[in-house]
């Protein structure tokens, strides 16, 4: 009863179907294209949308990098990289500049991507209006009519209640002046890095069965008000305790030796390359 799996796991019919949805997504930046998401050998909600994009686009000559929250070594990144490698045999790398295809959960690599690189983001909740309106039928109509009062209303209510917007990651963006989009929960710091990027970004939500895209050189603006401008995370005075970087996205951690609270680059490859002297100083 031994069975052999197809190149890149999915059958060719499924891959073609997913690539069609991708093309539609690229043609309508920020628009969520429904697709018949397949069940994958990793958990639904663990990056199956991104994985289906990766497997549908990958060819034997691609070089793959997978990161989770910025880290190549995070357990889920390791697992996804292993699965793609097992079913395709493609080379993998941790070095951002060497990858042709990067699948990521919740981060855009610090090093700017080029036009020859494809970024695939895993998306848990693709609908930016979901907290405001639970019903898909309604949110689809709101998008069709570009009726985004709800998205602004939420920010407005936060300002009224807390004196500031309190969105965490996944702060909604306006894509190409037309569609409000959930940038997948990338931190607010990463939002600006989608704007007018050289690379194509594909976003895939497996459980919610949606694919969308930000093509190269597309305007991506974070929603905000004139008198309450968009703010990114605050790392004032902080620097990475490993490589000393400032002006990058940092996460808090505890130094195991001193027990002190310290900051560290969330992009582990960027950090490692700085330590080895490959990445230029800021």
């Amino acid at each position, binding site marked *: 009863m031994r069975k052999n799996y197809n190149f890149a796991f999915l059958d060719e019919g499924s891959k073609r179907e997913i690539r069609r949805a991708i093309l539609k997504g690229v043609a309508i930046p920020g628009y969520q294209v429904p697709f018949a998401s*397949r*069940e994958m050998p990793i*958990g*639904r*909600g663990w990056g199956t949308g991104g994985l289906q994009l990766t497997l549908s686009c990958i060819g034997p000559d691609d070089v793959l990098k997978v990161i989770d*929250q910025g880290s190549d070594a*995070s*357990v889920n990144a390791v697992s996804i990289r292993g699965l793609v490698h097992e079913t395709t045999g493609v080379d993998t790398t941790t070095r951002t500049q060497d990858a042709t295809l990067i699948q990521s959960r919740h981060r855009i690599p610090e090093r700017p991507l080029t036009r020859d690189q494809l970024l695939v983001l895993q998306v848990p909740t693709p609908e930016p209006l979901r907290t405001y309106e639970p019903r898909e039928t309604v949110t689809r109509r709101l998008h069709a009519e570009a009726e985004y009062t709800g998205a602004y209303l939420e920010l407005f209510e936060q300002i009224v209640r807390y004196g500031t917007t309190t969105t965490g990651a996944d702060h909604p963006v306006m894509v190409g002046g037309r569609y409000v989009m959930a940038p997948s929960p990338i931190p607010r710091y990463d939002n600006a890095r989608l704007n007018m990027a050289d690379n194509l970004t594909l976003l895939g939500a497996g459980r919610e069965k949606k694919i969308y895209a930000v093509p190269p050189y597309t305007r991506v603006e974070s929603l905000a008000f004139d008198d309450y401008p968009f703010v990114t995370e605050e790392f004032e005075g902080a620097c990475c305790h490993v490589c000393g970087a400032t002006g990058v996205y940092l996460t808090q*951690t*505890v130094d195991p030796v001193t027990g002190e609270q310290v900051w560290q680059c969330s992009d582990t490859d960027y950090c490692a390359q700085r330590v080895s002297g490959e990445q230029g100083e800021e």
Partner: protein
Amino acid sequence: MGYVAVTGGEQAISASLDLNERRRVAGGRSVDVDTVLSCLPELVCQVQSEGSLWAPEVAAVAVKQACGSVEEAVFLMRAYRSTLERLYTSRVIDTNEMHVDRRISAAFKDIEGGQILGATRDYAHRLIEFELADETTADVRDRLRELEASLDASAVETPAGVLDRVPRVLTYLRSIDMVRDYPLDDTEPVDITKTPLSFPAPRSVILQALSRGLTQAVIAIGYAAIRGFGLSHPTVGELRRGTVAVTVDAPGAGADASEDDAYYLGSIPVTEVESLIVADEVDEDGAHRSALDVGYGLVVGSDESKAIAMSVLDHSLRADDVRFPTQDQEFVLYHIDGVEATGFISHLKLPHYVTFQSKLDSALRSMAEKEDEADA
């Protein structure tokens, strides 16, 4: 290199998988797939029903690999299903031609074709049979011989073919115009594994989603619908259990190809329920009359509770006036799939360091704003 919380990495994952595999083999015993198939047929059936793939041997291997976890076995089946080419569409299966081994009606005592109780646990006393602890394969064989002898002695003679075309209970109600009539809908059914859900969902979508839904979720939501958070209190018009034949037309056969020229692929066990629910009908003159609506359930295998609950939900999801979550298509259909529900719940175990840092930043900033206001 500094300390990174849960770096995990290849080694940790591989060791974790080894630990898990060790748990599987730690008992020092192996169960062969035939044993799983013959001793746990209902488990294997449930895995195929929720996995929406009829492949008993594969399902039995999945059960073995998953150490008996239904959730995990279904997950394995679904992922395997994603790799299979869909080459044919079967001919329409007519459940009138089900080979029935059980068939009951809770609506009428005397039904054409008779009530056939068949094998059921319904009237069993749920006492643990401690003797089973010491049962051997030889005991099982003896027991089978004994039972076959006594059942043969007491069996009523049934003419050949009687169980292959049992009349429907609802035919009588239809003949006296008590059941609401719907025009025959022969539109091509939507395949929900190849088309994403959209709303309002066509009936074919509702039925597929319910039929492969998480068994316990279908039952729980169906229960809510009849207990108080819904308006459907059904009477089981007919519940029938048996096998149906799956056939495909020969390649190149036209739409009018005969059944006789089709290829027989095999038979699958199914349970079908037609529930009757009293519904209010308004005629052209605005006069109300009470009529009966039908809720339909069909599941692979013999889970009768799932089939009945499915018939309840089929009916409640047709309500055009949504008063309860059980009547809300988006509420029910988006959340009833086991692989999706367990997948998203379990993803909460993944690291959220970056996103949580961002949340924390916002919370801190809102606190700072409040303090500023207080100072001002």
